[in-house]
């Protein structure tokens, strides 16, 4: 495979190929290609799923088969997904690891290649990294565990903590929500399960790194996070993917629950290779006076469809989506946010920044729902698009459904361009074309990125730089 050669390339100083490699495939378990009841049984057997999970999966498979591809929020490109060509389960066959020493060498190399600094590697004690289907490394930082926080893979979560897991699993995002949530519900493996007990404020963000590592292998992580009353958590999900010649499907489901007065922040940075279909369903359920914030940055992939949402169920609940999408040549970022107001005095804020380069295409889709009987609800939506060169296109579909008086909705949208004149001006000061574009893009997202945690904004800037360098001939 060509990506192995890339790994061997001596001049690794250019980070451009980052994520552009893969390791030998020596999977102990492999469900083969295609998706039938047999595949489900195979997955259940290997994972030693409880019976209720087996039933849950099979029901989901039926729903997946019956459900058409989305026709409302959709892209033609979805028709190019051939579901029978994918592998739906693949595992190192290892149980989630507990200590650094037990982590396979190639996983360690993955971290190295991702450029995780030394001090952060020490911090890996608090990091859960997913290597293909199963968490190959999972170690809860002592302090976190001592606070009673559960931070495990979803498989361990459903087995060891069924009383919490079952209560919320599939409740925020029902299996039948859409075709891809049904698919995930049928074949999910990996992902995180986190429970933060009442009043516990987790100081350091918990993190997980994801990678795709085998040809034609789709990933179906399932993450469930519950933050109990008055508790606080920041979770960071990161992923870079190696480059493959054929299409790769990624379809995750992430469910968040914030109990009364809880605060939960979920951060994603993703840098998919340009052949990945990334069809993700993410939603949070916010109880009274709680706050759920999604920070979602999408770089790369062939098609990303992702609209993180918050159901504002309790009075004075707050929901927020801050997102950045970068669509380079040949890519389509179809992203947005959903805010479902279901109680009085709930507030939501959506800030979306999209960048389209060359033939890249960024679409914003928003849904803000405030029913008539509610009082004192507020929404603010801002969508800004940046176009770099004339081929780029951007579309904004901000559906704001608000009924009734005493609710306020504010909406702003802007489209700006990086002109050839601006690029020339910056080049005249000595910046290369790539640097000039990178600077413009960073300038465009700056104000928003300032609200992100420090280490995260640095990472994002680095990814934007790499992407811009790669986009000029």
């Amino acid at each position: 495979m060509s990506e192995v050669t890339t790994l061997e390339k001596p001049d690794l100083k250019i980070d451009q190929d980052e994520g552009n490699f893969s390791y030998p495939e020596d999977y102990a378990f492999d469900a083969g290609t295609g998706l039938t009841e047999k595949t489900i049984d195979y997955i259940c057997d290997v994972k030693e799923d409880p019976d209720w999970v087996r039933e849950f999966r099979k029901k989901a498979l039926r729903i997946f088969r019956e459900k058409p591809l989305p026709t409302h929020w959709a892209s033609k490109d979805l028709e190019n997904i051939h579901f029978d060509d994918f592998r739906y389960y693949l595992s190192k066959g290892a149980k989630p690891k507990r200590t650094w020493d037990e982590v396979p060498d190639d996983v360690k190399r993955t971290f190295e290649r991702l450029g995780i600094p030394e001090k952060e590697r020490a911090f890996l004690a608090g990091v859960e990294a997913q290597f293909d289907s199963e968490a190959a490394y999972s170690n809860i930082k002592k302090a976190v565990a001592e606070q009673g926080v559960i931070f495990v893979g979803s498989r361990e979560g459903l087995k060891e903590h069924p009383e919490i897991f079952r209560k919320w699993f599939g409740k925020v995002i029902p299996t039948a929500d859409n075709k891809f949530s049904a698919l995930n519900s049928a074949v999910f493996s990996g992902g995180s399960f986190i429970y933060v007990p009442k009043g516990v404020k987790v100081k350091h963000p918990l993190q997980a790194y994801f990678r795709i590592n085998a040809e034609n292998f789709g990933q179906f992580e399932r993450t469930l996070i519950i933050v109990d009353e008055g508790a606080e958590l920041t979770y960071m999900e990161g992923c870079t993917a190696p480059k493959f010649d054929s299409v790769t499907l990624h379809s995750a489901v992430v469910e968040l629950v914030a109990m009364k007065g809880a605060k939960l922040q979920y951060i994603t940075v993703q840098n998919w290779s340009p052949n990945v279909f990334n069809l993700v369903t993410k939603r949070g359920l916010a109880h009274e006076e709680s706050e759920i914030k999604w920070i979602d940055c999408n770089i790369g992939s062939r098609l990303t469809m992702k609209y993180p949402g918050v159901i504002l169920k309790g009075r004075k609940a707050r929901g927020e989506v801050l997102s950045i999408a970068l669509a380079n040549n040949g890519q389509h970022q179809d992203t947005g946010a959903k805010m479902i107001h279901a109680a009085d005095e709930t507030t939501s804020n959506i800030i979306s920044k999209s960048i389209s380069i060359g033939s890249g295409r960024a679409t914003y889709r928003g849904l803000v729902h405030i029913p008539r009987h509610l009082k004192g609800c507020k929404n603010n939506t801002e969508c800004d698009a940046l176009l770099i060169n004339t081929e780029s296109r951007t579309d904004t579909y901000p559906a704001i459904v608000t009924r009734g008086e005493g609710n306020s909705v504010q909406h702003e949208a802007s489209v700006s361009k990086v002109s050839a004149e601006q690029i020339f001006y910056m080049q005249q000061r000595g910046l290369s074309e790539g640097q000039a574009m990178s600077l413009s893009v960073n300038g465009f997202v700056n104000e928003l990125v300032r609200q992100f945690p420090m280490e995260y904004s640095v990472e994002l800037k680095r990814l934007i730089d790499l992407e811009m360098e790669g986009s000029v001939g």
Partner: protein
Amino acid sequence: MKNSLEIKGLKASINGTEILHGLNLTIPKGEVHAIMGKNGSGKSTLAKVMAGHPDYEVTGGDVLLDGKTILGLDPDVRAREGLFLAFQYPSEIPGVTIANFMRAALNARRPEGQEVDAVEYYNELYKKMDLLKIDRSFTSRAVNDGFSGGEKKKNEILQMAMLEPKYAVLDETDSGLDIDALKIVSHGVNSLRGPKMGILVITHYQRLLDYIVPDVVHVMVDGRIVKSGSKELALEMEKKGYDWVENLATA
């Protein structure tokens, strides 16, 4: 020639229309030259062609920086070779602060891993800002975004001061400036004058040349230099008007 910026028989067109029809000009290091010319005579075209603007096609002649041709080099390479252009209409770069922009421009001139030291950088920047009587708060404003005409021109000269080019072309830096700003900007340019820099001042009015006194004045008509002389030529021009040189051009 080493130590000069030479323009030899330069012909350039835009959208198939030839604007420069074989232009000759040599600016030795250490000298200040001025080009005067009516609107539309091709002054900005000359500046942009030298800087490598992609809209223009060079159809003949050469531009040599210290004896080496720069035609065919990307605009950023020319800039790093030491050519600076103060734009007649500087672009706005939203979201990018002057401080970050200048730092990126300086770092682009250095090898990787040897970025400018933050403390030294700000010392230098503040020094140059004081020279141009620019308020400190300026550094955190986005480049040219919402700037007045005068602020934009000051910002161009601030960048010139920071980047210390070998050759600087100032395209109508005086336009849009009131008399006080004109004096400050001229003072800034004059303090940068010296044996290490060659400067080409492009202007429409003689007024600027009272403050930035040139060593040589050239008159441009329809894409050519038609007359060159000492600084007195500018005054003569002012008195006799452009018709006088235009007659020279056709004579």
